């Protein structure tokens, strides 16, 4: 028994993170949680919506970092990313798939609980591997850096365990979101030209992914990638 008279506050040892890291980590967690949600989302439309939501969280993070660290360039980036990733990219995918008329993808190779446990394992791995690196600085929300690595690994899992073209494409786009979070956290000063080039590149990639998805659907009449098993050896 610890004794009645001990003031409880004296028991509180753990350091509270600053409000900046708190919010940055919170937004990164939202990104990570939406990645987990994509892992189980059964409908292609819900997956695209989740991607849009995730991009919104990334945009919010960009705006927040811009405000908190006084980097006006990032506002421009936030606006661009809002326009491109939250609105244009999902719209493009939805439009490309309008004539596909395949709603329920249900392409899980594993059960949801198994997938989630695997993903948790990957996230823990990412977090601890990066946590062992001396990437520290006063202005850096360290947890956000490690969590963005977790987002990237879970995106890989998404591409691996889901066998339909939508999930795989969304997996790649969300991988890019994870990298965006990393760049916002550790490289907020990246020149705007470069960031814009990245975004433009993503847009091109989206179009190409979309074209290939259409070609695939046109040839095989399905969104599943299970039929892609001819080439081996």
């Amino acid at each position, binding site marked *: 028994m610890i004794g009645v008279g001990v003031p409880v506050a004296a*028991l509180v040892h753990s350091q509270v*993170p600053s409000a900046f890291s708190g919010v940055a980590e919170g937004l990164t967690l939202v990104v990570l949680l939406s990645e987990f949600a994509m892992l189980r989302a059964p409908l292609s439309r819900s997956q695209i919506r989740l991607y849009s939501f995730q991009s919104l969280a990334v945009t919010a993070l960009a705006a927040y970092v811009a405000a908190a660290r006084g980097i006006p360039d990032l506002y421009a980036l936030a606006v661009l990313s809002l326009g491109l990733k939250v609105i244009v990219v999902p719209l493009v995918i939805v439009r490309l798939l309008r004539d596909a008329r395949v709603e329920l993808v249900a392409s899980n190779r594993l059960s949801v*609980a198994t997938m989630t446990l695997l993903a*948790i394992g990957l*996230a823990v791995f990412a977090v601890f591997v990066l946590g062992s690196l001396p990437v*520290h600085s006063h202005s850096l929300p360290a*947890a*956000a850096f*490690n969590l963005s690595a977790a987002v990237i690994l879970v995106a890989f899992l998404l591409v691996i365990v889901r066998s339909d073209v939508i999930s795989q494409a969304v997996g790649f786009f969300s991988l890019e979101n994870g990298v965006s979070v990393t760049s916002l956290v550790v490289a907020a000063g990246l020149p705007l030209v470069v960031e814009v080039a990245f975004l433009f590149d993503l847009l091109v990639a989206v179009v190409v992914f979309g074209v290939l998805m259409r070609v695939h659907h046109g040839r095989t009449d399905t969104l599943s990638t299970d039929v892609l098993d001819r080439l081996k050896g």
Partner: protein
Amino acid sequence: MVAGAELSQPVIQVGQDLTILVFAPGVSGAIAQVEARFQGRRGPRVLQPYYDLAKLFRKETLVPEDASWVFLAGPVVAFMCYLVVPLLIPELTTYSLPLGYMGDILGGGFILALAGFSVALAAAETDAPYAQLGSSRAMTFAALIEPSILFVTFSVALITTTDLPYAEAAAARSSFAAAIRPAHLLAALAFFLVVLNDTGRIPVETHSSTLEFGMIDEARTLEHSGPALALLKWGSNMKQLILYVLLINVFAAPWGLAGSRQPGAIGLAVVVFLGKALAVGLVFTLIDNSFSKLRLFKITEFMAAAFLLAVLAVLVLFLGGGA
């Protein structure tokens, strides 16, 4: 600080117990009433649970053939457990009461688990298939939700370096940054899901259903009658309120507790606490009415979600952001 007009600590402690004991059926009644309104019904009176209990206590107890003494002891043991737990948790006061350090979060968890176990054991005493089904399901899902509870406990331990509910509440109260820190929010959210599961709410269970196949917790009491059933119902109301206490006063909103021992402050704390409990009940009702129940085999997904949140809480704490 005004001297003289202070309650002694044991009195407050008994007050905590009494608050749970007395108000638990009322809170359940109020929630049922709100729920009925949501569904466009008039619903039972708020005080209906008390009438039900009174009626059940007047009835005779029927014991199935072949059932041993465990069948009747189960409800009593569970009820006793629910009376012990309020001694351990920050219900009305910010400071801990004499027996408050008798058990930590794990201790409280063990006692709650013992209660669940004795009810399940009593149900297993009968030959009735639904009761058996209920007890086996309840134990299965209790085991599945256990990792989440553990990780919530870990995150509390990492935040406070203790596993005392009082310390966690104090940590969350200490500053705004502490209250919104991601680890705390994640742990709170994970615990919210745990409570959702433990109080038998949608998406895990339809608590007002009469369909035995979907039942988990409810099915366990099917064979009981009379005072034993009254104890079970009362106990389950108390369990719900205890879990609300943990959710509110440890994680979600540990404000409005009495800082002193004056009767006025304690009384105010009781009122505030009941208000918060009703608010939480309202949230649960909203969820109840906006989601559908998961298929039994999909419940593991729900458990996985709770586990994910709890693990993330611990992860975030392990990185520079926390400890």
